[in-house]
């Protein structure tokens, strides 16, 4: 039975008001249905799949950043719709500023933070990793180096993925945040 909040809230409130002397509903022990299995057989597999997917996404990020365009068609396959919007906003800002990058960035030290199953809607995964931009410079339209002087060479990120099938292409980045433990990457 689909769980609906409002009728249950109403029922709960009404029940409280009754100062309830109502006989208990029987507690139903569920019949074992096909339990949703996690998509990956092990955490190591999950992490490996996420790292591979992130690698493809990362390459697309660098390519776009070096080109200085806001065309994110190559991106869309790697991220959820919500995340795509955020990435698009970032890309548009650099186009507006007239900046692009040059050089190769890398990432390392991937570590699994959590991997869990959401049942039928798929799995979620959170990993940490270090992005290294030591060899990347930021240039303006005239080719001058405008790399911010306080830009850290290495940063720790926390990335959340959604996975809907064992197909590599179903792994999507849902969220990308700084991980407060920046020491991890130093």
């Amino acid at each position, binding site marked *: 039975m689909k769980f609906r909040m409002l009728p*249950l809230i109403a029922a709960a409130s009404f029940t409280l008001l009754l100062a309830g002397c109502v006989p208990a509903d029987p*507690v139903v022990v569920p019949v074992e249905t096909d339990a949703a299995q996690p998509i990956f057989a092990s955490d190591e597999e999950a992490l490996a799949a996420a790292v591979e997917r992130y690698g493809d996404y990362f390459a697309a990020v660098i390519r776009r950043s070096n080109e200085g365009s806001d065309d994110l068609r190559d991106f869309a396959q790697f991220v959820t719709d919500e995340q795509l919007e955020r990435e698009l906003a970032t890309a548009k*800002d*650099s186009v507006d500023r007239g900046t692009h990058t040059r050089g190769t960035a890398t990432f390392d030290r991937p570590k*699994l933070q959590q991997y869990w*199953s959401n049942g039928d809607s798929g799995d979620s995964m959170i990993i940490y990793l270090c992005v290294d931009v030591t060899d990347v410079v930021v240039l303006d339209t005239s080719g001058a180096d405008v790399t911010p002087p306080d*830009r850290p060479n290495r940063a720790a990120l926390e990335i959340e993925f959604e996975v809907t099938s064992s197909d590599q292409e179903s792994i999507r980045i849902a969220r990308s*945040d*700084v991980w407060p433990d920046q020491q991890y990457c130093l």
Partner: protein
Amino acid sequence: MARSAVLPLAVSLLLLVGLAAPAIASGAGCSAQSILEGTCNVNTGIDDDEVTIGVDVEDPGGPGGPGGGGADEPEDPCVAIDACRDDYDATPPVTLSDIAHFRPTPGVDVMQPDGWMVVGLHTNFYAVSNVHVKSGELLGEPASVRFTPIGYRWWYGDGATRYSATAGSTWKSLGVAEFDRTPTSHIYRNPGTYFIDLSIVFRAEYRFVGEAWYPIQGTLTVPANRLVAVAGGAKTVLVEDDCTINPSGPGC
């Protein structure tokens, strides 16, 4: 037990009526792009380009938060000890089978609410386990073994599982309301009785008397206590017993 939980539950439910379910605040986030360009403020976690009015920018991390302690890589045993000098005989490394009689203390699995859950709401689970040292004899010599918990695996009893580098904590110490999502919470979708299992993954190090700690390759996974709990709809858990039989039951 359930009595004191009823009022907060009612308050939470009444609040939910008036508010749309809040998204977990993660501010504007930082993608790899913003790291490349240096627009990500790694101290606040905000991409400075993306601050917009009305967005909650006070939460630098995501719901994951800082994980279990720091680097996973084993320490290099040659950093601080004599055994790596050329004139010292190498000894074979101590393995997990050598320390088989040093057993880590199993952790404890705790759930909130205790022993019951409401279908559709977050049930919080957390593990209680700390670094601990056991002393005894190793390879014929007095020694200590230190166990550090580094990972937590839950089986929720409904087919869902979770591996977490975080042990989790109470709603109160996380500063959230009862039934709020936590990094280790789970939602049950159907009423019934569930068996919840937890295993904790430990790293081990050993030390002979007077010497330094050395790491042991691999990890040990130790089951904690099994929990049994009943999930019901809000109405069912609020009025559990006929109040003439149990006048102090929930809802009476």
